[in-house]
């Protein structure tokens, strides 16, 4: 890190730093008079907007080039995408529904990452929660009232998700074995076990079913929907989970302890924190949210689990939460963005006759450009000039660059 006195002169006006850092120009003209006082909160929001929107635009431009190369009209494609994901009521509902599992998974990742633990086994925890709920929900609905059944199912899903992290947790806490290996291995086993549960234990063996799957939970017995839409209350659970975790991390002593653990394990030891207990607690909490996500997805949307179903939500959420810097509010915004991209992408690719993995490409480009944008931003804040920024300055605002 360079000392602040090497910061170039134009950095003293905090606002210009932000606006021309990544925009490379266009936002310069209209917002320079707007910011007079050092409203750092607005500043922050503005900056993170910029760090989100520019990569988004860049990703769409690159994606558009692919579309052009394939003989599709990029503008029409994106128009369909936005229309299908946000503007049309049914699309917006789909987008919100998609948010539910992603939010819960993100909540689990926020806890883990804040404590410096890479729980990459989300898929296994998710699938086990989903499979068990898929297997038990329909038969439970016959013997108990719906509310009790739903609560019980969510409890089961969360518990199983948490249980599935115990081995990695103990191995990390006791022997310091890297959790990336153990959670990935447990994830493989978990996905296999989930498939086994569906095929053997919970198989719906009525004739005429092609792919093995669990019995179907009656639509009337699923999670209650909101305000007459198809959006189920799992979305609310997800939002509460993320905000709850955010509050826990920022406002409670447990959150502080986890953050210390994440920042420096040795420091946590010296501060007298029970590192082993905290590590295990983090794993359990993280796994619980993953399992819960699986349960919610089954109780709210699917109603059953097919043996070959594995949406792999866990993997996409990892970079997302990381880019949101484990901030709950930003995570919610990013999850919304991801849902828009994936739902809009799925529907627009279908219209355009493209494979629906094209949506993945756009998501990946957004993620990569966002990381890159963060990099340039952090360099700017440290007062280091990148080659590109210098070049952009020279081209776009000759006066400033000359002044340096």
């Amino acid at each position, binding site marked *: 890190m360079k000392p602040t006195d090497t910061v170039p002169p134009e950095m003293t006006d905090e606002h210009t730093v932000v606006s021309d850092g990544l925009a490379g120009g266009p936002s310069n003209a209209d917002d320079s008079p707007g910011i007079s006082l050092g409203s750092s909160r607005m500043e922050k929001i503005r900056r993170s907007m910029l760090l989100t929107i520019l990569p988004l635009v860049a990703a769409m431009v690159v994606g558009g080039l692919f579309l052009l190369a394939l003989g599709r009209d990029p503008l029409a494609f994106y128009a369909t995408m936005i229309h299908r994901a946000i503007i049309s009521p049914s699309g917006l509902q789909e987008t919100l529904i998609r948010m539910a599992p992603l939010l819960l998974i993100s909540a689990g990742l926020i806890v883990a990452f804040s404590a410096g633990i890479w729980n990459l086994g989300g898929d296994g925890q998710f699938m086990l929660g989903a499979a068990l709920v898929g297997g038990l929900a329909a038969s439970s609905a016959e013997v108990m009232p719906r509310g009790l059944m739903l609560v019980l199912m969510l409890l089961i899903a969360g518990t199983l998700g948490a249980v599935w992290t115990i081995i990695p947790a103990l191995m990390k806490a006791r*022997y310091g074995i890297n959790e990336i290996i153990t959670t990935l291995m447990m994830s493989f086993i978990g996905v296999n076990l989930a498939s086994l549960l569906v095929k053997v234990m919970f198989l719906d063996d009525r004739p005429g079913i092609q792919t093995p799957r669990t019995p179907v939970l009656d639509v009337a017995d699923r999670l209650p929907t909101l305000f007459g839409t198809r959006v189920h209350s799992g979305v609310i659970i997800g939002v509460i989970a993320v905000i709850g975790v955010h509050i826990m991390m920022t406002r409670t002593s447990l959150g502080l302890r986890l953050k210390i653990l994440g920042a420096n394990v040795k420091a946590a030891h010296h501060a007298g924190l029970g590192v082993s207990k905290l590590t295990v607690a983090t794993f359990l909490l993280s796994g619980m949210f993953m399992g819960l996500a699986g349960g919610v997805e089954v109780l709210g949307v699917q109603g059953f689990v097919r043996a070959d179903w594995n949406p792999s939500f866990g993997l996409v959420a990892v970079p997302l939460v990381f880019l949101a810097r484990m901030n709950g509010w930003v995570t919610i915004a990013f999850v919304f963005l991801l849902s828009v991209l994936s739902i809009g992408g799925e529907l627009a690719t279908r219209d355009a006759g493209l494979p629906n993995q094209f949506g993945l490409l756009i998501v990946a480009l957004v993620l990569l450009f966002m990381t890159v944008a963060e990099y340039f931003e952090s360099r700017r804040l440290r007062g280091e000039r990148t080659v590109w920024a210098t070049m952009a300055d020279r081209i776009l605002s000759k006066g400033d660059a000359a002044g340096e």
Partner: protein
Amino acid sequence: MSEALITALLVGAIAAAVPLMLAGLGELISERAGVLNVGLEGMMLMGAYGGFVVALATGSTWMGFIGGAVAGGLVSLVMVVLCVRWGLDQIVVGIGILLGVEGLTSLLHAAQFANTYPRLGKAAAPSIPWLSDIPVVGRVVFGEPYMVYVTLIAVFVAGWVLRKTPWGLAIRATGESPEAVDAAGVNVVLVRSLATLSAGVLAGLGGAYLSLVSSGNFIPLMTGGRGFMALVLAMLARGRPIWLALGALLFGFATALTTALQIFGIDIRPEIVNSLPFVVVLVVLTLFGRDDYLPSSLALPYVRGER
């Protein structure tokens, strides 16, 4: 057990192990240099696609492997720039790479082959007089596709380079203590860049093996988690290519066992057999693995003068 069963089992085990070995070897090298390559699966997938396209165009399996290596290497360049040069987070970028390649290859596949589904011919294997006629051994040891032998040689060469050469020392030291390496006048960024690049090339070869030898065609998302499996194997191998090769063979054997048993009418769930190696590894880790030997600077970007 009949001769045919044993042969099928061993041949299947080797066929399933080779892609894991190649990709895992790449991961192992880059991990020793301190770069955790989560995008390995993506590099494999790109290699599978690139290898297939080149082999289809040239009609040569060898050109296909070169194409796969180049494709995997090109993808790893993203990692070189973003993670090694700029020090961005390796896990985030790795997952970004994986998703991007999944999207890109599916798109390209749909644009080119969606209606034709071309296939490649069978990969060539040696036929040595006498030796190839020995029962079981003739097929298993002397009748494999050529790439199998290349892979085994690569494992031993990588082991030798890592242990005995200055290059290997530089790689291992960079993973443990990049500051010291830098102070000694070795270019940390260069070492890590080359290690990451070799991971991409080897993963590309592993992916190309899937499309060129195992299946003879390219299917979207055909790597099916093998990249992550290779990643786990590389981490478990504790930096030793031989252990990695043995681990890959164990997994290959489990895969082959499922198929073989089913052919012979013994119905055992593939889920159980596929999970078994992981269960065994976890038990072994719990009983014996009281610590792990991962490089101490793994996944930490090196910025000169920081910390």
